[in-house]
């Protein structure tokens, strides 16, 4: 019948309209709606939509105890793999050009991510062999410029492992389980190296303690 289709459509629209009000449950059921089905938007920024645990935005660097103790060793794998090439890393080196170490590993002097270029793809996280970089879920990063304001430097990117555990508990637990044996191994290796260094230090006091080739080798072994 002509016109019936239009009327039916209007009926559906009317029903949906009623659904946007908070009527009693029985009434909504009567017209075939679930409670709250008509209310789908929230008044941001007063109310924020809850997001999934996996939600990713920009990457950040993880440190364990203190910001000095960052996991990143400046191996530059993420820099190479990042599709839009928005990561820039330089390794901390001494005057002679040899990498300096802290906590037995090399570290970046500069680690910049241009978040205006980053496309939040998570490839850097996937390829990092040290679980040093993870995805944040803080999406409120608006600023007044897109030059230096959007170029996040190392200190801005560093966040604690605790914070990571708070935003992504499941992933954090996985990462910890993966890192635990490595940490134990590194500790044992460090203890052995220290014992060896002490032994070596006895006859010749002036031998430098860092730049131990066996140490660097074990780092690489972890990476593969």
């Amino acid at each position, binding site marked *: 019948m002509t016109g019936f289709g239009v009327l039916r459509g209007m009926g559906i629209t009317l029903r*949906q309209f009623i659904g946007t009000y908070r009527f009693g449950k029985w009434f909504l059921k009567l017209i075939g709606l679930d409670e709250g089905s008509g209310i789908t938007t929230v008044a941001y920024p007063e109310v924020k939509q809850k997001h999934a645990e996996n939600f*990713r935005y920009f990457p950040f660097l993880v440190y364990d105890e203190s910001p000095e103790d960052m996991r990143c060793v400046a191996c530059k794998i993420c820099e190479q793999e990042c599709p839009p090439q928005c990561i820039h890393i330089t390794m901390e080196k001494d005057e002679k050009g040899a990498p300096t170490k802290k906590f037995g590993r090399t570290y970046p002097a500069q680690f910049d991510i241009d978040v205006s270029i980053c*496309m939040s*793809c998570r490839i850097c996280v996937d390829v990092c062999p040290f679980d040093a970089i993870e995805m944040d879920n803080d999406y409120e990063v608006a600023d007044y410029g897109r030059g230096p304001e959007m170029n996040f430097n190392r200190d801005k990117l560093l966040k604690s492992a605790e914070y990571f555990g708070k935003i992504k508990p499941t992933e954090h637990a996985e990462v910890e389980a993966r890192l635990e044996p490595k940490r134990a191994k590194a500790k044992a290796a460090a203890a052995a190296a220290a014992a060896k260094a002490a032994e070596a230090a006895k006859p010749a006091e002036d031998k430098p303690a860092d730049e131990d080739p066996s140490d660097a080798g074990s780092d690489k072994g972890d990476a593969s």
Partner: protein
Amino acid sequence: MSRITIPEESELLELNLGPQHPSTHGVFRMIATLDGETIVKLKPVLGYMHRNHEKIAEEMSYIASFPYTDRLDYLCSMSNNLGLAIAIEQLAGLEASERGEYIRVIMAELTRLVNHTAVTGFLLNDMGAFGTPLLYAFREREKILDLFEAASGSRMMCNYIRPGGVRADLPEGWLDQAKAIVKAFPKFLDEFEGLLSENEIIRQRTLNVGVLPQELAINASITGPMLRATGVDYDIRKVDNYSIYDRFKYRVPMGQVGDVYDRYYVRILEMRESVSILQQALDDINDASPYISPKGKAIAKAPRTFKPPKGETYGRIESPKGELGYHLVSDGSNKPYKYHVRAPSFINLTILEDMCLGHKVADAIVILGSVDIVLGEVDR
């Protein structure tokens, strides 16, 4: 007495639609030549959103192209990922894990729901039904996007499917959530159809508008719902049986006339079939096997070490818009020597003028809407 004189021969008017026009679905431009209000010539102008995807992909590892495929057809990032993953698997002779295959099919079919809800909503928008049907459709789409976010971390730029499986396992409770959404989906479809399918105004605007003859559709290599609306039984899921589609029971809906209404209705029916595939897949999914094969995992972890053997391949899938194909040529290095995307919306668009001739301007907008283009894919 009249002050208006009508010239013997009417003059043609050239009308420029777009590129910044909401009804051209992005930065697409049509130069329509009008006689009165009837279109006598129509020239599409493309390339405003060309981002050099294919050349960029030749400069990076195979895996690094995945986030860029998300941005081809930004409504269906999951199926774009799937197409590339299948092409890479063919090239390197990889197998996907069992659970990985199921997750992929689930994601691809959810993407079909997302795309078809969006496109039918937008089609109605083009007809002047501002907002209402579109927002009902988007409300439903949002629920599926929440599923995508829970699994992959992103609503639209998922970057989730990898050669050999998927990037990460589904989080806990995801399958139940998905089941609930899929179960409720037919109710939405019924309502959506009640709103639209029998609506007299919509029927008047779409029946016998923009008819695409079957012969022309085949000759112009149109694929997807547009081809099936003309009555051709061609669905790559059935033809190629890629992934694990041969394990599910589903039908391929077809139209008869090939007008805008058929294209709309084929999409509605396709959603119903997708729901049925989803129900089967969600019931059958196997918890025991890993979400990605060990080889796939190694590739995802170290993309630069992945060097497929020399050769070339063409991997294709039935994306919601049609045949999405990736042509890859490998020279044995870790970057593709040649990378080409066969974008369904681009090829479906080639036929636009033939469908629009003789119709009014307002119909051209509706016809364009029924083609279902996304400019990210057209221009690449």
